[in-house]
């Protein structure tokens, strides 16, 4: 607010002194009070509109005040020519200029508003996502802790209970460490069963984040003890939605996954748990006696002690890690840790939250920055043209004694004022643009809720507006610097107009615009090529638009008996298959590119025994029902797929992906009949078939070497019968709109058990689209920037060539009178435009080669220097430039020699 006050006082200098003396404090007080009130009642956006409106009103009122003042006092000599009075005088002079030339003013300000608005919008995303510290107390001390095991082929794996306990007990660098896991849970016992997002947290998490419950209390060590009474903390949104914000909710119970849990607290409003916004928080109960050094599947966050750096934390982790196999005798041994080259990764929490979106955002900011440059060049051109027409005026002013510096100051003041007015309007553009952007933005864009137009963004907008104004204001100054007063006064305008060097600056500007448009065009072209490459990859399944998916968990509280649960999966599939329009149905621990299910297991191969004490290779296991490959339409390359009997009779069979077969046996056929098992306590399982690879982790990632196992096993890991209870059902249908299946599927499930909630209903192609979301987001954004840039660039070229033609009318008239043909004249003009385009392309190509290297991380299967893209883009921009010249060229051919010469 301090900043706003200052800006306001600065703006009020526009008013005459006596008005300021009387009302300045009042105006400031009124506006700040009112702004505060609006902010409280109608939010930040309303405040922005409020300020935009009042700034315009103030400027307008100031102009009127000044005019009246001038009217009432006749040429009273002004005292003192110090900077402020000079500025005020120049501003009022400029403002009157705006009134005199409304079209010029409107075009210039709108162009600037477009450029500044786009840049500000993207900057507010960069600011909200990348620059702002996390909304947590002293967030720079917060780190995410995970592990690495390059010896097992894992660059990064999550933390485990064992390593968490070791770090918590032994650490010298962590103030505290906590473990968490995002899960889905079923809430029953209220009107409708509901699947909600939950986060399990250890007792240390909230204290180390410095978050208190809004009502009630946080988890304490007793809540996470193995036999503790079940408790739950509600997220603020869920509390409002399901309990109407009732403050007496403490002590009531909520049935979560069939367990009555006591509500002990409600989290504060607006609190999000890192990237999640869970409905409920559950205590992460850990029984030390059962902990083994396995299960690397939880997230860990820690707070460093004040003053501790990341490298110290890593050193301390390296000291603690060897203690783990000693303390927890089950699971990995010290030798295995050594073989796996097991290590710890400690990274700032913010980096983990942001992920790899950073590069995309910086490139986008660069792209809109280039658009702003083009906008500036265009406005600079307008100013140049106008400066030319105002030569007489300026010459007269300097002839009667105005200093050159005064004329330069006046020009700069005027352009800066343009910049600032453009910026004020640009803020409105940014607001609208931001709304649009957040609507099309990828759902995975982190920290979405923190993107706002805040004081930092306002300051940024102000700074770039001023800079933009100064930048294009320099062109006319350079121009006037060379002005020959005597020639101009003599009315030398016409005589001088033919000299080609006078157009050099303008031609250079136009060439520059062509170059920048070309860079953006090439950037977009590369994104299009990447997107095409992604689309061309066979994901491993066919026609995803026909596949309806929905997840369903058979909670053990509802269906305790595993046999019964297995039967129920079959019953659901049977009944769903009989629904009209359904061709086949299946279920699996996860669908391709969907939320992960199943897990990584150490797979033993009969053909390739591992030394004792050595860890067998880890592969992804997916638990599936019959007809999985048929429903996905993944090809069976050798052998056969699972039959219903395989699953019902618990036959020891397994299907592997092509990558798995090739990795160990070279040929897919050779894998059939071989035996593998996911743990030494399991019987050997025969590979009955090999299926095509599926890009399970997104199209841009390699297809994993997956092992498919029936979802119900006779004896898994020595725990007796095992049923995968959390399954995603995939249903292929001929219905034009697969989502119409949802009510019928729900009916099927509820006819078997009305306490089972369904969740995440969608079609497979929606999941596929999401896995390309980042690329398509970048593509759309760059595309918009490019269209604006090319359009502005074409307008710029058009403007320059038109102007040149207009100034050369007389010359063309003479040429035609002397016998030049229409095509000669057309050629003359096109040649000049072609030269501008050529220079632009010559500058743009190498610049693009340099700049697009920055976007390598966003590209897929295309090099940043791609000859095809560069060629097409250069040809395209040249064509657009020539097209922009064509209109003025035609106009030139219509010049009538008589009319042109009569003007002499």
């Amino acid at each position: 607010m301090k900043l706003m006050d200052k800006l306001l006082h600065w703006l009020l200098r526009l008013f005459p002194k006596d008005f300021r003396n009387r009302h300045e404090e009042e105006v400031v007080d009124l506006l700040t009070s009112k702004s505060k009130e609006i902010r409280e009642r109608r939010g930040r956006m309303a405040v922005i509109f409020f300020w935009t409106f009042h700034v315009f009103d103030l400027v307008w009122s100031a102009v009127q005040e000044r005019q009246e003042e001038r009217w009432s006092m006749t040429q009273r000599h002004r005292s003192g020519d110090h900077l402020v009075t000079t500025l005020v005088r120049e501003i009022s002079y400029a403002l009157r200029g705006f009134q005199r030339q409304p079209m010029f003013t409107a075009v210039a300000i709108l162009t600037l508003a477009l450029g500044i608005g786009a840049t500000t919008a993207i900057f507010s995303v960069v600011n909200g996502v990348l620059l702002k510290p996390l909304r947590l107390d002293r967030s720079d001390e917060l780190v995410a802790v995970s592990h690495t095991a390059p010896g097992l082929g894992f660059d990064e794996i999550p933390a485990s209970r064992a390593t968490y306990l070791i770090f918590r007990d032994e650490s010298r660098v962590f103030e505290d460490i906590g473990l968490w896991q995002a899960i889905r849970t079923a809430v029953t016992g209220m009107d409708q069963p509901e699947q909600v997002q939950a986060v399990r947290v250890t007792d240390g998490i909230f204290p180390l984040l410095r978050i208190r419950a809004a009502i009630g209390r946080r988890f304490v060590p007793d809540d996470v003890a193995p036999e503790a009474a079940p408790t739950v903390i509600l997220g603020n949104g869920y509390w409002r939605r399901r309990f109407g914000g009732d403050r007496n909710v403490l002590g009531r119970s909520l049935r979560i996954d069939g367990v009555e849990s006591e509500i002990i607290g409600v989290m504060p409003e607006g609190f999000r748990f890192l990237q999640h916004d869970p409905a409920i928080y559950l205590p992460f109960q850990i029984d030390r006696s059962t902990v083994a050094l396995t299960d690397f599947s939880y997230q860990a966050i820690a707070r460093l002690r004040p003053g501790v750096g990341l490298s110290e934390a890593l050193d301390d982790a390296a000291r603690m890690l060897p203690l783990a196999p000693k303390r927890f005798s089950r699971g990995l041994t010290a030798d295995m840790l050594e073989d796996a080259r097991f290590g710890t990764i400690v990274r700032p929490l913010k980096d983990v939250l942001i992920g790899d979106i950073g590069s995309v955002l910086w490139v986008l900011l660069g792209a809109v920055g280039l658009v702003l440059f083009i906008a500036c060049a265009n406005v600079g051109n307008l100013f140049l043209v106008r400066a030319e027409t105002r030569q007489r005026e300026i010459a007269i002013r300097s002839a009667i004694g105005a200093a050159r510096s005064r004329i330069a100051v006046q020009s700069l003041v005027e352009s800066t004022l343009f910049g600032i007015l453009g910026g004020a309007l640009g803020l409105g553009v940014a607001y609208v643009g931001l709304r649009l952007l957040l609507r099309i933005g990828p759902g995975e864009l982190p920290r979405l809720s923190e993107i706002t137009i805040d004081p930092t963004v306002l300051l940024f907008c102000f700074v770039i507006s001023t800079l933009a104004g100064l930048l294009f204001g320099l062109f006319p100054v350079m121009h006037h610097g060379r002005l020959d007063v005597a020639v101009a006064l003599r009315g030398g305008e016409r005589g001088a107009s033919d000299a080609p060097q006078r157009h050099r600056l303008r031609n250079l500007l136009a060439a520059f615009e062509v170059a920048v448009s070309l860079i953006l065009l090439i950037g977009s072209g590369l994104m299009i090529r990447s997107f095409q490459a992604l689309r061309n990859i066979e994901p491993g399944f066919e026609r995803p638009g026909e596949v309806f998916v929905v997840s369903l968990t058979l909670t053990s509280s509802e269906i305790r008996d595993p046999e019964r649960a297995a039967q129920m999966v079959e019953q659901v599939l049977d009944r769903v298959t009989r629904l009209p329009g359904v061709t086949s149905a299946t279920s699996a621990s996860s669908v391709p590119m969907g939320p992960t299910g199943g897990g990584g297991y150490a797979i033993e191969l009969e053909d390739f025994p591992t030394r004792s004490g050595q860890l067998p290779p880890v592969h992804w296991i997916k638990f599936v029902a019959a007809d999985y490959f048929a429903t996905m339409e993944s090809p069976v390359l050798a052998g056969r797929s699972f039959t219903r009997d395989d699953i019902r009779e618990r036959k020891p069979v397994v299907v592997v992906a092509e990558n798995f077969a090739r990795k160990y046996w070279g040929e897919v056929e050779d894998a059939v009949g071989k035996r593998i098992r996911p743990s030494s306590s399991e019987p050997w399982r025969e590979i009955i078939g090999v299926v095509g690879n599926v890009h399970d982790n997104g199209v841009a990632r390699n297809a994993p070497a997956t092992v498919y196992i029936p979802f119900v096993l006779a004896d898994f890991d020595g725990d007796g019968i095992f049923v995968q209870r959390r399954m995603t059902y995939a249903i292929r249908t001929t219905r034009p709109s697969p989502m119409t299946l949802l009510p019928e599927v729900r009916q099927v499930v509820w006819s078997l058990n009305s306490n089972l909630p369904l969740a995440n209903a969608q079609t497979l192609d929606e999941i596929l689209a999401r896995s390309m979301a980042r690329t398509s987001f970048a593509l759309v954004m760059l595309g918009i920037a490019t269209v604006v840039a090319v359009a502005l660039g074409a307008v710029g070229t058009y403007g320059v060539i038109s102007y040149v033609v207009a100034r050369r009318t007389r010359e063309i008239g003479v040429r035609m009178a002397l016998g030049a043909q229409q095509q000669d004249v057309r050629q003359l003009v096109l040649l000049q435009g072609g030269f501008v385009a050529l220079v632009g392309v010559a500058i743009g190509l190498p610049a693009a080669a340099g700049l697009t290297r920055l976007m390598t991380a966003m590209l897929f299967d295309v090099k940043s220097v791609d000859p095809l893209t560069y060629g097409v883009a250069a040809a395209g921009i040249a064509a657009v430039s020539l097209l922009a010249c064509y209109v003025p060229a035609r106009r030139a051919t219509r010049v009538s020699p008589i009319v042109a010469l009569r003007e002499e």
Partner: protein
Amino acid sequence: MGRRPCTDEASKLTPLMFQILLALSASERHGYAIMQEIEERTDGEFSIGAGSLYRSIKLLVNAGLITEVRPETQVHSQRRYYRLTPNGRQRAAAEARVFHSMVTWARDAHLFEL
């Protein structure tokens, strides 16, 4: 465009000036309260810029239609209070009568039934 000189009488009241007079007819107020009163009375139909508001106030003071007063208790030192002068009250009443006759006319023309 806005070239009209400021006359002593503010011979023509702009709608905003008239609204300011109306807002001050019940009691003396400061600028912020005048703005609030006008926005409330017109259901937010009018957005008044701070610059325009104080320009109009200045003109009305110069024309002697309103006057600045010192309130007894000063909460915000920078706030000035304004009061209607007898002249101003007459002027507002005259203006209101003109408007009233126009509104009656509009009603006779059945404009309110649209």
